[in-house]
């Protein structure tokens, strides 16, 4: 397949486990049973005349303390309540302090799920490592906790008095896109709009077959070392596949991807888009790689998020 050609699509698929919904109901219940114990620490050295910056910590499933960067517009410049925005990081990226989003008026939380710096004191599988950590056991697989860290991060955001809980958006690219999909699906009652770039963890097993780039290459390497684990691996990742979360999303969602993405094959993003049963928009950038056209899409993303929250009170 050359850049510019994004077919065939039919290669991507994953079975939805019969107990997918009950599995996640149980995981969410276990995560929600852990007291959040959210704490906010002001960071005056990182704050500006326009934006207050904080470090947020909260407790997630397995009693892990999770960190995030939290920014709000200065109250004296822009009065609250503010729309809330959860920004999720890429696989090897550390979250950036989201000052620019607060200058646009958001109370913005940039998550650092388990394994990221500041959230890795007790869980640190490394990079490479995270994607295949306990990948033959859905109950201890890395992304079980990782997804819940995002889920509980949203709870922490909703607990802030300056945040308008009726105006919540999620945004991220690559792994950030995967987490945004999960949040939009599991919190469809709360999330009002989502933007997903170059979505990762969609059609996981097929994605690994379509690339030699990390992080999916971790799966190829794992299976070279443990060919007898293939069936158990496939059983596990089906519970964590964005394609199986997609039908639960009801909010407007923008998906953008590049036709030459070697990291998250474009076929998998298209498969996600096909499975969405929500108001949706697709932007395909010809020849773009894992950047997914980001160079041109800053204003498009900001407008889509703002439009999605317009009318919400």
């Amino acid at each position, binding site marked *: 397949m050359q850049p510019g050609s994004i077919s065939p699509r039919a290669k991507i698929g994953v079975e939805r486990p019969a107990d997918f919904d009950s599995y996640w109901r149980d995981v969410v219940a276990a995560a929600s049973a852990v007291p959040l114990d959210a704490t906010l620490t002001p960071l005056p050295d990182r704050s500006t005349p326009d934006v207050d910056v904080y470090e947020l910590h909260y407790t997630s499933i397995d009693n892990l303390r999770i960190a995030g960067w939290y920014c709000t517009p200065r109250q004296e410049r822009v009065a609250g309540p503010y729309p809330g925005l959860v920004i999720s990081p890429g696989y090897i990226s550390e979250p950036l302090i989201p000052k620019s989003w607060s*200058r646009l008026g958001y109370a913005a939380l940039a998550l650092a799920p388990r394994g990221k710096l500041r959230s890795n004191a007790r869980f640190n599988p490394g*990079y490479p490592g995270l994607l295949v950590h306990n990948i033959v056991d859905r109950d201890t697989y890395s992304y079980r906790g990782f997804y819940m860290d995002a889920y509980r991060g949203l709870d922490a955001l909703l607990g802030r008095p300056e945040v308008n809980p009726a105006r919540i958006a999620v945004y991220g690219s690559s792994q950030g896109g995967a987490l945004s999909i999960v949040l939009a699906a599991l919190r469809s009652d709360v999330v009002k709009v989502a933007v997903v770039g170059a979505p990762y963890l969609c059609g996981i097993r097929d994605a690994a077959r379509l690339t030699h780039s990390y992080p999916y290459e971790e799966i190829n390497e794992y299976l070279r070392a443990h060919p007898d684990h293939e069936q158990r691996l496939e059983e596990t990742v089906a519970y964590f596949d964005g394609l199986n979360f997609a039908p639960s999303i009801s909010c407007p969602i923008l998906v953008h991807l590049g036709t030459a993405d070697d990291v998250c094959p474009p076929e998998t993003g298209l498969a996600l888009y096909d499975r969405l049963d929500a108001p949706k928009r697709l932007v395909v950038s010809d020849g773009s790689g894992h950047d997914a056209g980001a160079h041109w899409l800053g204003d498009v993303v900001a407008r889509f998020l703002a439009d999605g929250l317009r009318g919400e009170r």
Partner: protein
Amino acid sequence: MTGVDFWRRVDEDLARQPMRPALELMPRHSTGEFSVYALSLTSVGPYRMFAYLSIPRGEGPFPAVLEAPRYGSVNNPPHWNDRLRYVVLTPMHRGQRLADQPFAAEYPGLMTQGIEDPDRYVMRAIVADCLRAAEYLFFLDRVDPARIAVRGTDLAVLIAARRPRFRALVVEAPYLHRIDEARQATDAYPLEELNDYARCHADGEAALARTLALFDPTAHAPDVTATTVVGIGDGHHDNREWLAPLLDAFPTPPEERVLTFRGGVDADWFDAWLAGQLGAAPMSRFSAVAR
């Protein structure tokens, strides 16, 4: 203190410190076509740093690529396509994962660590780590010494200038160039780290200007002997006009690649350019697996 003195002392510090490399095969990353090793070696400090080393199976000698570390906590292992064609050395400078004991870098935070004093600035040690990696690569017996390249951000310019034994230099995305000017026009990290520092320190502006000038690739480019390509953007801080002082500083005018910002297209172009310089076949990462 001149830049010449500053960098001469970095070289002297490195020369005094034995490298003491140690290799350990990483079976998970190795195949019948290449072997990947965990390499540990000692840089200034002393500090034990880490690198992935991938070597194609066979006699060699092979062309080689040194990957300058990105600004971030993680560098991926060498890409499959590169492992097939080159000896690849991918160092983690101090503070990055796999080289984060006893010093773990913070993001944000690393960019300004010790910046008030050039001799204590963490970037001095980071450049030294990269130079140490280059020194290791030059003496591998399965590397063709006439076909060694370095690629990355403009950190690669410093490496190529301080160790002028490279055949080719790929500067995909300059960011150290005029960084003290560039940071004043943005609130985006990582450059915002510098603004945070300037806001909170009475003499911050002067310290930033003094220290960062030593790391501007324009000051180093005159010593580059490698055939060079530089990526040219379309923004205020990466366009042709902004980069002109750097481009003009090379002893031989570098090739200028006007970026399309379509990542697949740009990556393939740089891959083909480098392969041409090193006598290898171009390989697209997107097409690494037949569809």
